[in-house]
């Protein structure tokens, strides 16, 4: 098996940047990404959408094409449609197993960059499993990758993505019927003291203000301080129900696009046993990394939103910093040059990160999402309710692995991606324990399902009959 200097998992802004720069420093690099083209979710299909779509999605999106071109022009080998499902530490380096349409392959690398990005936070509200309910991110991916837009949609939840998506849908000629937001003016007021800190990220902050101005131009109905969100409908979504100012309302629609911010996708970093810390502001676990992005396991770097949510503009400098350190460790860059080159990206990274405390306070996670009602389903795959998890907590389950054993919560094909944080929140509340002590699911290989036939192809030859 060939051994490359660096394997990068994920071709979003962080992964593309790290791979391109490391390749530029003379390292042999392979990039493994699930999608048919580089870009990640933020710049999904950026190189193939055409100008009409670019007009809808806007300038920030189109900028991603530069990163894609950089990667494709570099010496880094880009594996398309490559689903990574096993990563094993070797005596030196790592062995990564992935599947493409042609079947499974393995590659060994001296160092590893996990740039696996973010997932939408789980949003366990009544009816969130009904057909017609999607994440806001999904609504945006449909636009980016497929030029498909929901015709009669309500956006619900909290966070700037809702505004951006509403604008993009409006530009596409299909404005949402309403934006129903869970944060209140009190949250926004509480966030104001943090504006000063956020000013270091003024470029992004000002873009946000511009977003709000354009949104007003589209005259979309906005409701804030909404509580008790529930999707109504039998067999599929027929509308959104919510309470404001003590009054329950309903809006009929075909599609509900939910959002409560995004959280790091830690499946790979968990499976590798890296140390994680509870991030109270993000209400999520984040892998512990140093200033270069190196994790608690030597040779494994975690960068981009997967290392803590900071957005695409922060992912690029994070990718640069990781590439500098990796090139230095590989002997391709001396310490002085590394440190000199690190100054600028470090400043940009800090500026982008300085925005987050403001956003976290202004758009907090809705209370009903952190502590779902007993009858609300928390595990979509195994169809387990919050009440059942609480029942097992009362039986003494203090950790998510025990509730998993007791009631299958987290055992389905999504492997806990859309219930893990909810279960941690429920157990932390049930036992009045810190989230870090409750912990999270033990993630096992395969990171994504693989057929037994494919796995069997990797049987060691000396064991074959």
């Amino acid at each position, binding site marked *: 098996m060939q051994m490359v200097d660096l394997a990068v998992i994920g071709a979003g802004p962080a992964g593309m940047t790290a791979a391109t720069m490391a390749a530029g420093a003379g390292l042999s690099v392979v990039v493994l990404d699930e999608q048919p083209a580089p870009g990640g979710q933020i710049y999904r299909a950026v190189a193939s959408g055409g100008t009409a779509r670019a007009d809808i999605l806007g300038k920030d999106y189109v900028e991603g094409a530069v990163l894609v071109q950089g990667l494709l022009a570099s010496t880094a080998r880009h594996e398309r449609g490559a689903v990574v499902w096993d990563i094993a530490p070797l005596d030196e380096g790592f062995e990564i197993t992935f599947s493409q349409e042609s079947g499974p392959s393995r590659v060994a690398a001296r160092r590893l960059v996990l740039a696996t990005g973010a997932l939408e936070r789980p949003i366990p509200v009544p009816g969130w499993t009904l057909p017609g309910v999607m994440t806001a991110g999904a609504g945006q991916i449909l636009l980016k990758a*497929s030029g498909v837009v929901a015709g009669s949609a309500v956006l619900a939840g909290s966070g700037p993505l809702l505004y951006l998506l509403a604008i993009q849908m409006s530009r596409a000629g299909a404005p949402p019927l309403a934006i129903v937001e869970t944060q209140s003016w009190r949250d926004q007021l509480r966030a104001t003291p943090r504006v000063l800190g956020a000013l270091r990220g003024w470029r992004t902050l000002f873009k946000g203000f511009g977003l709000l101005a354009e949104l007003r131009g589209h005259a979309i109905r906005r409701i804030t301080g909404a509580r008790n969100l529930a999707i109504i409908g039998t067999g599929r979504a027929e509308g959104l129900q919510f309470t404001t100012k003590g009054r329950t309302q309903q809006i009929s629609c075909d599609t509900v696009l939910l959002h409560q911010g995004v959280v790091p996708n830690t499946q790979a970093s968990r499976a590798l046993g890296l140390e994680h810390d509870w991030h109270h502001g993000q209400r999520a676990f984040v892998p512990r990394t140093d200033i270069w992005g190196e994790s608690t396991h030597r040779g494994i770097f975690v960068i981009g939103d997967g290392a803590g949510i900071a957005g695409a503009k922060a992912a690029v400098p994070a990718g640069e910093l990781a590439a500098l350190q990796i090139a230095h460790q590989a002997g391709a860059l001396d310490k002085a040059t590394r440190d000199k080159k690190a100054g600028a990206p470090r400043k940009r990274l800090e500026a982008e990160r300085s925005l987050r405390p403001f956003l976290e306070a202004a758009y907090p996670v809705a209370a009903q999402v952190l502590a779902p009602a007993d009858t609300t389903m928390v595990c979509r795959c195994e*169809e387990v309710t919050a009440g059942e998890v609480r029942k097992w907590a009362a039986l003494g389950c203090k950790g998510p692995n025990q509730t998993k054993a007791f009631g299958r919560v987290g055992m389905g094909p999504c492997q806990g991606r859309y219930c893990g944080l909810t279960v941690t929140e429920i157990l932390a509340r049930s036992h009045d324990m810190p989230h870090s002590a409750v912990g999270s699911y033990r993630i096992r290989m395969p990171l994504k399902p693989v057929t037994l036939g494919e796995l069997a192809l990797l049987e060691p030859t000396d064991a074959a009959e």
Partner: protein
Amino acid sequence: MNSAFRDLTPAQQLVPVTLDGDELMLPDGANLAAALLAYGVGVFRGTPVSGAPRAPYCMMGACFDCLIELHGVTRQACMTQVQAGLVITKPKGRDHADG
């Protein structure tokens, strides 16, 4: 079929696939989940736990709710590209009659 979604770029090369035995035309190379939604497929499967209807939720390969069968193998529709001749089956899920 009536779709809850609009296709902004309908003038694409269409190729034939079958869905539960019926032939339909989908845009060549398109994301299969998006193409089925735009075509008007509102429910992709019934769950194996309760038979409840499901459709795409995350569109990025993480939630596993858009599972369909392609030539007899369970696949994520949102991670699949349309090509001519795909044989697509909607998983029926648990039959309530079986309890």
